[in-house]
């Protein structure tokens, strides 16, 4: 499209600033620091709004339905087949030593301690962190977030807090469902593949778990929920570059949340093992 006379009249000769490798690196480093600072500010502000009124109860329930109930089908299906695959993989090894009955122990411990929380976190990230980022990003580029602020509403309280609370409340429940469906899938696989009795599988699976395992398994989802909700919101609220930026933010939200969940998992496992050793 041709420039209008006004645009031509107002145009000035602008010299492009010289780009250097050092300059690019310095700017990238500063950008990264700014991102961390902004994310920390968002987390701090979100934590504040989690414990102070007003609460948008209707929004929280709506998000719980979206994040919790909406994720249930993929959680149930994935959980069942993860448990089944674990039995198939481990059972064949145990059978070599004539210890196929140990399969229930291994599946229960692995699922409750590690696979249940982390896989649920990653699955919900794939579905919800991206959804949150794209929804808030679209609201930002269409000035709906500014409109909200212009009408006296705090977007952190109205948009971020309900999504964070809903994720905090539903992810542990979804993790419990993954654990249960995993054990069910493992049970079915062990009955049909290893010829174990279902009663023996469940008895061994339940006996293998102690309180420390449950503590570890149900402590992690709270951290994972906070990570995926806040990263989704942060990426959504910092979208730049219109609709293309929304797509970019959505991808970044999925990748960053997944990586952060895996990183956090390593640290949380170490902390949980330390606490289990000291307390129980």
């Amino acid at each position, binding site marked *: 499209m041709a420039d209008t*006379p*006004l*645009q031509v*009249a*107002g145009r*000035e000769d602008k010299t492009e600033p010289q780009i250097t490798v050092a300059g690019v690196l310095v*700017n990238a480093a*500063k*950008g990264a*620091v*700014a*991102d961390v*600072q*902004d994310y920390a*500010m*968002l987390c*701090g*502000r979100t934590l*504040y709004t989690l414990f102070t009124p007003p609460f948008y109860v209707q929004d929280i329930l709506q998000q719980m339905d979206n994040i919790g109930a909406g994720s249930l089908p993929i959680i149930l299906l994935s959980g069942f087949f993860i448990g089944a695959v674990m039995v198939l993989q481990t059972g064949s090894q145990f059978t070599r030593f004539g210890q196929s009955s140990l399969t229930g122990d291994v599946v229960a411990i692995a699922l409750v301690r590690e696979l249940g929380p982390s896989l649920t976190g990653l699955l919900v990230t794939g579905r919800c962190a991206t959804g949150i980022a794209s929804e808030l990003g679209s609201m930002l580029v*269409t*000035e*709906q*977030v*500014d*409109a*909200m*602020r*212009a*009408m*006296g*509403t*705090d*977007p*952190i309280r109205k948009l971020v807090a309900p999504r964070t609370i809903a994720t905090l409340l539903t992810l542990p429940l979804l993790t419990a469902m993954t654990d249960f469906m995993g054990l069910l899938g493992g049970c079915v696989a062990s009955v049909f593949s290893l010829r174990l009795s279902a009663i023996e599988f469940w008895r061994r699976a339940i006996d293998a778990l102690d309180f420390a395992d449950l503590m570890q398994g149900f402590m992690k989802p709270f951290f994972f929920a906070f990570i995926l909700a806040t990263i989704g919101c942060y990426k959504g*609220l*910092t979208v*730049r570059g219109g609709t293309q930026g929304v797509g970019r933010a959505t991808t970044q939200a999925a990748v960053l949340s997944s990586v952060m969940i895996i990183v956090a998992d390593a640290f949380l496992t170490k902390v949980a093992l330390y606490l289990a050793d000291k307390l129980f």
Partner: protein
Amino acid sequence: MVRFVAAQRQIAAIMAGIRPMTSAATSTSGSSPAIKFERVRIGFEEGDILRGVSFEVQERETLVLLGETGTGKTLSLKLAAGLLRPSEGNIQVLGRDVSSMAERDLLAFRRQMGFVFQEGALFDSMTVGDNVAYRLLEDKVKDEEIEPRVLEVLRFVELEDTVDLFPSELSGGMRRRVSIARALINRPPIVLYDSPTAGLDPVTSQTIITLILRLRDVYGVTALLATQRLQDGFALANFRFDPATKRVVHNVSNGNAAGATKMAATRFLVLREGGVYFEGGPEELADTKDEYLKRFLV
């Protein structure tokens, strides 16, 4: 550093509620201008957009912000609403310094202002009725009080039949009118219009301008209107809404003999290269010999 500052400004504006309360927000007497910019400077990655801009808008006055794309018209509106903070200078709105107020104070203060965004910025997951009632719902106003007020403002913009529709079911002009209805639901003394007729056909634009005239002449609101269309500004200066006959009539005094005619004045402010290039009444602008300003009059 530029990247850092820009990123900071974008997110900090949303998240600034964590900042402590400031004592800078002060109330002054009612004689002060409704909106006052003093040496306001703000910029982004590509450099400063506004470089020390100063202007005032008196009560019941309409100031039309003119300028090419990227000269800072929308930015000025967002600064006036406290949605962005200037890097230098200060901005007084209704006697309070919005440039230094904490976000939590601004959230409450903004309820005294209406903001009509360029594309309407309606919440697409809500019906028209819920969009218009948003502020009242936030304030926990009783349901039986909300409905008549929503219908009243929708009747004002002649869209009372759209109350149950979603924004995606409306035309561009209808969305702007709903946005105006949403802005005036709690009768704010100041309304900020961001290019309310941009991209609309002449008939729909005329409808929007008539609404702005009605809002000004019926409710006496102070307005800051950003536009690229000079004819919008002249329409506001040359016409008025007569509440008695409920018609738009020619304003013989050009709208600027406010004291004599009790009509709201309309002034123009042209932004160019980060500064105020022209400030004055419609006659001065119409009679200008300046080559740059003449381009607007073509």
